[in-house]
């Protein structure tokens, strides 16, 4: 009897242990090459920059101080310097604006696709899926090519006689916002579609039956039921838009900075790794706040990824 129980229990435990071991390679890779680097960056942010990039192993809070203040070279007094903060604020405003624009236009798009006949739906969906996975750099270059001074838009406008000198669009805030919208629009549509596709349209019929108008059905029934998709979509747009690097790099031309290229600059031409590390960690804490709100909103409903 007890021998029986012991041997079967042992076999079950053995199978369980093997399955747990199976997660080990993935966890080890992500831990060593994904999490450990973040820890190293945390350490770096408390060190001093070396002259040609890298760090000096000497404790310092200089990176965080210089994020907010400028130190006078002669008398070492600190004066508040909002330069970095304003870049963070700009990035935040851009990210929120992109998120709202994507939601306002993405919801109708997702709804339209979700209400197509079943056999058509997969083709409409593929139209969104292709840009979702396509090369972000190339898509951004494509925008650059048509909005630059010699680009197609200005070329046509001049040929049509609407304008006689090209409108400067590249390297402006407009270019960046357009680029962000264009880059992350599919990230909004896909989770919205996933929610809307599951929507039980008998509920909509019930709404009509109970004297609701189209607009009211949308507001009172469809949008509340699509909330998980809305929240997931907003997160999937907001996080990458906040840390966008490619878009401002190509469409902002180094003059209209966002957090992403500010950080890259510290690790590149500015050669101030500790400052870059501190800036990255401040961005990371913003992302964690967003994730925290997301987790609170979807508590118990499981984490929904974009796809």
């Amino acid at each position: 009897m007890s021998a029986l129980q012991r041997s079967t229990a042992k076999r079950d435990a053995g199978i369980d242990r093997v399955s747990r071991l199976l997660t080990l390679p993935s966890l080890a890779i992500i831990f060593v090459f994904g999490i450990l680097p973040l820890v190293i960056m945390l350490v770096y942010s408390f060190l001093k920059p070396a002259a040609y990039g890298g760090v000096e192993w000497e404790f310092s809070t200089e990176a965080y101080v210089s994020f907010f203040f400028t130190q006078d070279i002669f008398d070492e007094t600190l004066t508040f310097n909002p330069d970095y903060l304003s870049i963070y604020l700009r990035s935040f405003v851009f990210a929120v604006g992109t998120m709202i624009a994507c939601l306002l236009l993405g919801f109708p798009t997702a709804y339209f696709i979700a209400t197509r006949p079943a056999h058509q739906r997969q083709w409409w969906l593929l139209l969104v899926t292709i840009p979702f996975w396509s090369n972000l750099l190339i898509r951004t270059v494509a925008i650059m090519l048509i909005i630059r001074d010699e680009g197609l838009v200005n070329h046509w406008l001049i040929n049509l006689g609407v304008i006689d000198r090209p409108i400067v669009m590249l390297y402006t805030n407009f270019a960046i916002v357009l680029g962000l919208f264009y880059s992350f629009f599919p990230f909004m549509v896909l989770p919205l579609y996933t929610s809307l596709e599951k929507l039980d349209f008998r509920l909509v019929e019930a709404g009509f039956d109970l004297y609701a108008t189209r607009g009211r059905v949308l507001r009172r029934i469809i949008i509340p039921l699509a909330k998980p998709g809305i929240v997931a979509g907003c997160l999937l747009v907001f996080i990458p838009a906040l840390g966008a690097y490619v878009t401002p790099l190509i469409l902002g031309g180094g003059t209209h900075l966002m957090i992403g290229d500010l950080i890259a600059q510290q690790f590149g031409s500015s050669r101030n790794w500790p400052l870059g590390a501190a800036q990255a960690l401040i961005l990371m804490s913003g992302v964690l706040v967003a994730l925290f709100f997301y987790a609170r909103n979807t508590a118990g409903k499981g984490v929904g990824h974009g796809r």
Partner: protein
Amino acid sequence: MAGRGTDVRRQPGFGLIAGLCLTILYAPILVLVIFAFNANSIVSIWTGVSLDWFAKALDNEGFHQAATNTMIVSITATIIATMAATAAALGTTRVRSWRGQSAAYMTISLPLMVPEIITAVATLSFFALVASVFGINLGLGNLIVAHTVFCIPFAYMPIRARLEDMDLTLDHAAADLYATPWMTFRRVTLPLLAPGIVSGAALAFIVSFDDFTISQLVAGPGQQTLPVFIWSMTRRPMTPELNAMCAILLGISILFISFSALIGQRRR
């Protein structure tokens, strides 16, 4: 039409918005691809159809070098990530839940949550430290490792989804018909999981192949990948050669995306 008034799903204007957005989404790409076939050397003036720029792009020494680097990095990272992700998916689904399981799941999805630029500079810091402390520089290996990290969650998601859809009683049926656990895995679990694995590998390949941010910051001299090379091309006087290169890359991405989507649909 009677149907119009009674279709409860219809919301006025939504079709128009959808059409407009999809047009905005595709117009720049289409323009880019069309002008790759332009005979003229000025990017926005159309003079005639020509394949010269494709020939020139494929002849470009730098493009060759970058393509070789990309293939080495993407294929290696895809293989490692897909194997690791398959094992992890088997370990996190269809087993009795274990302590730390949700922590394991969070760890695997972590690379999706961290903005790319942070991953890029953190990885750069990490390899700089490894190089200065141990004197180790893996060359392209650095890139492979960095790509593997973010490929794992992309490969993991479709494999896990497929496993969760799979009926556990099929495994029971195999065991009932005298298949040992290993034979059950080989003859039942693995063949049924195969579409998920292929789909996951395709996604891993796409994200690795398309990656720019991390590659640009981590790659050392001579380790340019295709996207990094294309970026360097945008900083020189532009000719349709750039369009041709972009079109080639887009074509490869779209091929893999459609392939992965097709496999995903066959499940239904």
